[in-house]
C-alpha cells in the first residue's frame, strides 16, 4: 500500500476553499491517497479515518490467517477474503480512484500469479520423484519466534490467497467501479443534453 501523499494529485476543490489553515495546524497528508468521491453517498471523514487506520491491521491479520492456517482456523481462502475486505473498505470510503491507487497489482495479474504459484507448488514434488502435490516441510528454530515451520502447502495456500484477492478485486472492479464510472458518464451526458436543450430554448 502506498503511503498517503501530499499534493500528489491536483485537487480542484482546494482552490475554492476560503482560507486554508496555516503553519503547524495545516494537514500535511490526506487520509487517503486520492481526491475522495466515495462509492456511496456523501463523503464521510469518520469513515476515511477509520479505514485508514484499519487497513494495515486488516492486511496483517490476513497474512496471520494465511500463515497460522495449518494449526488454527484460517488458511489461504479465509486470509484472501480478509485481505480483499481491506480493498473493498478502501473502495467504499474513497471511490474507484482510491481503489485503483490502492491495488497492488491488476486483478488479472493477481489471478495469474496465484495460479502460477499454486501450479508450481503442485508440480514441484514431481521433480524429486514424489507424487503431485506432495507436501514437504522443515522446522526451524528462530530467535524470538521459537519453532517455525515452513511447509510447501504454505506457498500453495498463498496461491489460493492471491486468487481470492484477485477474484474479489475483479468483481469489485467490474460490478462496483465500472458501474460507478458508467453512471458518472450517463450523468455527464444527461447534463450536457439538458444544457444543450436549455441553451436552445434561450436562443
Amino acid at each position, binding site marked *: 500500500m502506498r503511503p498517503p501523499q501530499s499534493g500528489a494529485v491536483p485537487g480542484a476543490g482546494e482552490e475554492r476553499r476560503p482560507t486554508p489553515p496555516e503553519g503547524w495546524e495545516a494537514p500535511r497528508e490526506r487520509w487517503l491517497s486520492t481526491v475522495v468521491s466515495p*462509492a*456511496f453517498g456523501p463523503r464521510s471523514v469518520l469513515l476515511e479515518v477509520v479505514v485508514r487506520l484499519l487497513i494495515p491491521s486488516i492486511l496483517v491479520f490476513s497474512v496471520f490467517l494465511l500463515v497460522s*492456517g*495449518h*494449526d*488454527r*482456523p*484460517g*488458511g*489461504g*481462502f*479465509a486470509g484472501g*477474503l*480478509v485481505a*480483499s*475486505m481491506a480493498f*473493498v473498505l478502501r473502495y*467504499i470510503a474513497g471511490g474507484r480512484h482510491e481503489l485503483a491507487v490502492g491495488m497492488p497489482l491488476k*486483478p*488479472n495479474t493477481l*489471478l495469474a500469479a*496465484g*495460479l502460477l504459484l*499454486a*501450479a508450481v507448488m*503442485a508440480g514441484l514434488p514431481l521433480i524429486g520423484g514424489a507424487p*503431485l*502435490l506432495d*507436501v514437504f*516441510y522443515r522446522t526451524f528454530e528462530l530467535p524470538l519466534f521459537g519453532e517455525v*515451520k515452513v*511447509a510447501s*502447502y504454505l506457498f*500453495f*495456500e498463498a*496461491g*489460493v490467497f492471491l*486468487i*481470492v484477492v*484477485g*477474484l*474479489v478485486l*475483479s*468483481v*469489485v*472492479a*467490474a*460490478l*462496483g467501479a*465500472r*458501474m460507478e464510472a*458508467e*453512471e458518472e*458518464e450517463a450523468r455527464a451526458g444527461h447534463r450536457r443534453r439538458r444544457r444543450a436543450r436549455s441553451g436552445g430554448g434561450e436562443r
Partner: protein
Amino acid sequence: MLLPVILALHAATAVLLPPLVRLLGARAFLVASLPPALSAVWALSRSPGIAAGEPAEASVPWVPALDITLDFRVDALSLAMVLLVSGVGAVIFCYSAAYFRSDQAGLARLTSVMVLFAGAMLGVVTADNLFALYVFWELTSVTSFLLVGFDQRKDAAGRAALQALITTAGAGLFMLIGFILLGQAGGTYRISELVADPPVDSPLLPVALVLVLIGAFAKSAQAPFHYWLPGAMVAPTPVSAYLHAAAMVKGGVYLIARLAPGFADADPWRVLVLAFGLATMVIGGWSALRQTDLKLLVAHGTVSQLGFLCLLAGAGTHTAAVAAIGALLAHGFFKSTLFLVVGVVDHQAGTRDIRRLNGLWRSLPVTAAAAGLAAASMAGLPPLLGFIGKEAALEAFLPGHSPELPPLAAGLELAGLVLASVLTFAYSARFWWGAFGDKRAAETDIEPVPGTDAGGEDGAEPRIPRTRATPPSAVFLAAPVLLSLCGLVLGSLPGPADAIAAAYAAPYSDHGKPYHLALWHGLSTPLLLTAVVIAAGAALFRWREAFARLQGRAPRVISAEMGYHLFLHGTYAIALSVTRRLQTGSLPAYLGIILATMLALPGVRLVTALATGEVAVPSGGDGLRLWDTPLEGVVAAVIAVTAIAALREHRRFPALILLSATGFGIAGLFVLHGAPDLALTLILVETLTTIILVFVLRRLPATFSVRAPGWPKRWMVVLSVAAGAFISVSLWLMAAARTAEPISLGYEAAAEQAGGRNLVNTILADFRALDTFGEIVVLLTAAVAVASLVLLNRRHRVVDEPSADEEQIEEEGSRR
C-alpha cells in the same frame, strides 16, 4: 528410424521461422523447404527396399494406457504420397520465396503454418495407427483453416476457411467414430494389421466403413462435399498449389487407397466409392467448363480428378490399384504445375480472368510450355504420365477384365470415365487457351484496338491487344517447369512409377494378367477409347460456344453449397430457439428449473424408496434431540425469523440485510457445533457477498416487482416448500443411514503426520489438494467470466460497430 526425427524437424522449423522471416523476408521459404526436402530425399533413399516389399517402420509410444502408439510405416503407397507431399512441397516452398513479397502482412505466420502443415500431412501418410492418423488428419484441417483464412482483411477468406474447416473436420468426427468401430471390430488400431486381417464378419463393419468414407469423401472434396474446394481458392496461390493439388485433398484418396486392399470386398464399400467417385468426376468436369477464373477452373478440375482418383483407389482390383498410383503421381505433378502457372500469370500479367487475357504465350513462352505439358498430362495425351494413368484406368473397367466387378457396373463406370475424360480434355484445352491462347474479340472483355472495331463489312473481326506481362524470374519459373518435366520424364520412362504401383497392387490377385504402367500396350480397347476421348474432347473445345450456351440453358441442380448453408442456418436456428427457451434471463425461472429437476429425479426416487421400504425411517430415539445447548435454539429462532422476514420484505435492501442475517445465524450454528473454520469462512463470504450485492442494488429498483397472486405464485410456494422439505428429510435420512465407518476417523492421525493441527485445512491443502487446485481454477475462471460479462456492455466496444447497432441499443435503452 529417421522419420519421427524428420517430423519433429518440421515442428522445430515452424517455431524457428517467424524470427527468420523478419531477418530474410520471403527468402525464409527456402529455409522452410529444407524439412520437406530432407523427407523426400530420405524417402527416395529408402525407395528400392520399399518397392521390393519391405516397408520402413518406426514406433514411438505416446499414450500407452489407451494403446495409442505413434506407429509409422512407409510402404509403396506411403512412398508415393511422401514423394508428393514432401517432394512437391519442397518445390512449392522454393516457388513461394519468389511469389510472396517480403513486406506481405502475416508472412511469418504463413511460412510457419505451411511447414506445420507439411509435417502434419507427412504424418497422415506415414502413420500406421488409426488414432495417430486421425490426429495428424485434423492437424491438417486446422492448419489448412489458418492458411485459407490467411488474408484476415478479406471476409470471404474467413468464410471459406470456416466452411472448409466445418466440412472436413465435421466429417472427420464421423471418421473418428468409424475408426473406433473399426478398431473395436478388428481388435487392433494398427492399420497394417487391420488391412491384413480385416474383421469381415463383424456386424459393425458396414457402419464403420460408411463413417470412415464420409470423412475421406469430405477431405477429398467428393460430391456432395465438393463445394468447399472452389471456395478455398481465396487462399494464396502457392497454398492452393500445395494444399489443394498435391497434399491435403489427397488425404481422403490416400485413406481410401490405404484401406481398400482389406475392405474393398466388404459391403457397401465398392458401391459408395464407385458411385460417389463417378458423380464427383462428372460434376467437377461439367462445372470446370463454366469457369472464367483460371484458378477456379483448375479447382473444379481438381474436384473432377479427385473423383477419378477415389474411384480408382477404392475399386479394389489389381489394375485399378496400379492405375491409382499412376494417376495419383500424375495428378500431383500436373495439378500443382497448373496452380503454380496460374500464380505466375496472375503475378506477371495482373489478372487470371480468361476474359482479360489474350495471346499471353508470346510474352511468357516458358510458362506456356510448362502449362502445355501439364494440361496435356491432365487431358491424357501421350507420352505423359497422365496418359499412362488414364490408360490403366480404362483397362481396369473394361467389362470382364476383373472378376471383382460385375460386367454391368464395370460398363457403367467405363462409360462414365469416358464421358468425364472428354470433359477433362475440354477443360484442359480451355485452361491453356484461356491463359495463353489468342482469342477473338467476342470471347473477351478487352477493349478492341482503336480503328479495327469498325471493320465489319468484310467480315474481319476487330483485333484486340495482347496482354502484356513482365518476364518472370528464373527461380519463379523453375518450380512449374520442374514439376511439369517430372510428368514428362515419368511418362516416357514409367519404370519407377510402375515399381511403386506393382508393390502397392501386390495384395490384389491379378488373375494371371499382371498389368504394368507403360506407354504402349499394343492396339487395345483403351487406346481406341483414348482416341475417341481426344476426338470428342477436341470437338467439344472447337464448339465451345455452342456448348456454353447449352450449359447456360441446363437447369441448375440444387447446389451442395446451398445444403451447407441450410445446415448451418438450421443449426443456428435450433441453437437460438433452445437458448431462448432455456436462458430466459429470469432468475426465478432458472431456480425453478433447478429445484424442479432436483425434486423430479432424486426427490421422486426418495419417495419411492420410502414407499417400498428400501430406506428405513430412523426410529425416534436415534440421536434425534432438540438441541445440545439452548443457545442453538436461540440461533435457530434467529435464522427462522430472519428467513421469514426476508420472504415478506418487498424492499430489496432490507431483504438483503435479512438474508445476510440468516447467513450469520448459520455461521453461529457452525461455531456452536465446533467448526470455527467453516464459521470464519462463512462470515467472510457472507460479508463480501452482501457488500457486492449492495453495489448491484444501486442499479435495481428499490422494491421487488409485486407478483400478482395466482397460479404462478402458488406454484412457486409449492416448489419452494417441497424443495425445503426434500433437503431436510434427505439430510435427516442420510445422517442416519450410515453403514460404513466414517473416513474422517483416520484423518486425525494423518493430519498429525502431515504436520498440521487444523484438520479442515490439512484436508484442503494436503489430502484433497487436487480438489482445491481444481476449485481455484474455477474461481479464476469465474473471475475472468464475471469481469468480461459485466464489461461486455462497455461503451467503447459499441463505438467500433457500425452506427446502426448503436442506434438500436439506444432504442432499446429508451424502450426500457
